[in-house]
């Protein structure tokens, strides 16, 4: 396939035709990657909802170099040959993104101290980056009771930003659609139809795809804060043919508090894990421990300095696992 040239924030890259601006930026990597709250590369049809990935297209293509009149969502706009994109270098984009974050926070409760997602929450990062620690919103927020959907998943509808990622996950990763969005506009709400529990093999992945703390692990609920746990790469042979058996264990000393799928540098899961691996195999002996998982230095999780722990501590863990 022909490669086309695109310039993002002054950095030129050649990508395949039909690549979105967001994915082209991700190929470059670094600071110029627009944040994404709803787009998820492994889920078909995701993206275009949250508007946090807005960028300015300063020149449409080499043939037609007129700029696009409005900011465009980079996750759903495809690149053209000779396109010039401005992300962090354009003040309009930065301002627009700040407003979008503020709008996402309109109905989002500021309950980070209670929320289990705090420390690994995309919305928290965005709010922090744009200096939005406080809200200007004075009216009553949309409120719901928190509910248990299924044995393992807790739904805090208050925190939901309606990115639809979990709906696509339920649709595409697990068999049989069991949960979706009810209502429209301000009344829209993630729910299992008629409070049916979600209990198929891959339903636990909705926890990982959720960018906020709307869907959280009930087995980890209030157990610990993520920055007090030590993330470890673990793997096992899973009987389920669709499950990759590669996961991350969030450990405290010698106990596994939580198991999640592995996220890449864009905090996206590429290989999903089944519910058995996620919720039922919580013994160290069930897994092979590969070593500490690298977390970005700027994340609060790295405050724990778990990677600096002496090697023999990990050896001891592995020996424990073998016994």
């Amino acid at each position, binding site marked *: 396939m022909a490669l086309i040239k695109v310039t993002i924030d002054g950095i030129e890259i050649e990508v395949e035709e039909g690549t979105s601006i967001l994915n082209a930026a991700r190929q470059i990597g670094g600071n110029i990657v627009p944040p994404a709250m709803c787009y998820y590369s492994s889920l078909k049809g995701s993206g275009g909802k949250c508007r946090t990935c807005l960028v300015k297209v300063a020149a449409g293509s080499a043939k037609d170099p007129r700029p696009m009149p409005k900011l465009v969502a980079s996750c759903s706009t495809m690149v053209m040959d000779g396109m010039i994109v401005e992300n962090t270098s354009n003040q309009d984009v930065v301002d627009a993104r700040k407003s979008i974050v503020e709008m996402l926070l309109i109905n989002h409760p500021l309950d980070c101290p209670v929320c289990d997602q705090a420390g690994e929450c995309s919305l928290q990062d965005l709010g922090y980056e744009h200096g939005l620690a406080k809200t200007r919103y004075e009216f009553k927020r949309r409120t719901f009771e*928190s509910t248990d959907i299924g044995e393992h998943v807790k739904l805090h509808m208050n925190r939901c930003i309606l990115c639809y990622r979990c709906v696509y996950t339920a649709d595409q990763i697990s068999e049989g659609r069991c949960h979706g969005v009810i209502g429209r506009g301000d009344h829209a709400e993630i729910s299992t139809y008629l409070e049916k529990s979600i209990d198929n093999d891959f339903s636990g992945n909705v926890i990982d795809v959720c960018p906020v703390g709307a869907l959280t692990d009930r087995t980890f609920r209030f157990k610990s804060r993520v920055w007090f746990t030590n993330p470890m790469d673990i793997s096992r042979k899973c009987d389920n043919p669709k499950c990759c058996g590669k996961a991350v264990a969030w450990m405290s000393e010698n106990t596994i508090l939580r198991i999640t799928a592995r996220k890449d540098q864009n905090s996206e899961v590429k290989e999903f894990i089944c519910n058995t691996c996620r919720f039922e195999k919580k013994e160290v002996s069930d897994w092979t421990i590969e070593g500490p998982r690298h977390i970005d230095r700027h994340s609060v999780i790295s405050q724990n300095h778990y990677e600096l722990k002496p090697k023999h501590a990990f050896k001891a863990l592995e020996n424990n696992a073998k016994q």
Partner: protein
Amino acid sequence: MQSLTNRSKVVSNKQMSFAERTYLIPIIKGMMITLKHLFKKKVTLDYPKMTRPMAPVYRGKHILKRDLNGAENCTACGLCAVACPAEAITMVAAERKKGEEKLYKEEKYAAIYEINMLRCIFCGLCEEACPKEAIFLTDEIVKPSDLRENFIYGKELLVEKMDHRYDITKRQKHLIK
């Protein structure tokens, strides 16, 4: 060589006279100083009976505040523990059950909250980190003890007593505009 400063003292080995050898005048001089101090204001205190006034923003023993209705403010978010440079704070969170709304302000609360007062350096970073206005340092001093275990303060020592509320408005003066 001539010294550049006049700080150095020139030492001489000359013989002392009889009057000088009795040391009478220096002794009287010294005794006068002693006598003068008898009539001066005392700088020490008769400690257990008397105490000095503490600054209202003194950083002493911690307190876990309750709100006006008596519910605990702390939600075990762990920010104090991650801010603590001495790693003196540990906690275990638990979920509030129905009917406990009067005891705990938020959905989550600290079931166990411990501060090791021997590790604590009383820097006040926990107070600064707290998003819920739950932990404050007070002008009380940690009591001495001869057992290390006694310095691990649990919730029974830290949580504010309802019949002995602690006023923190002076600590928050910078917040009131």
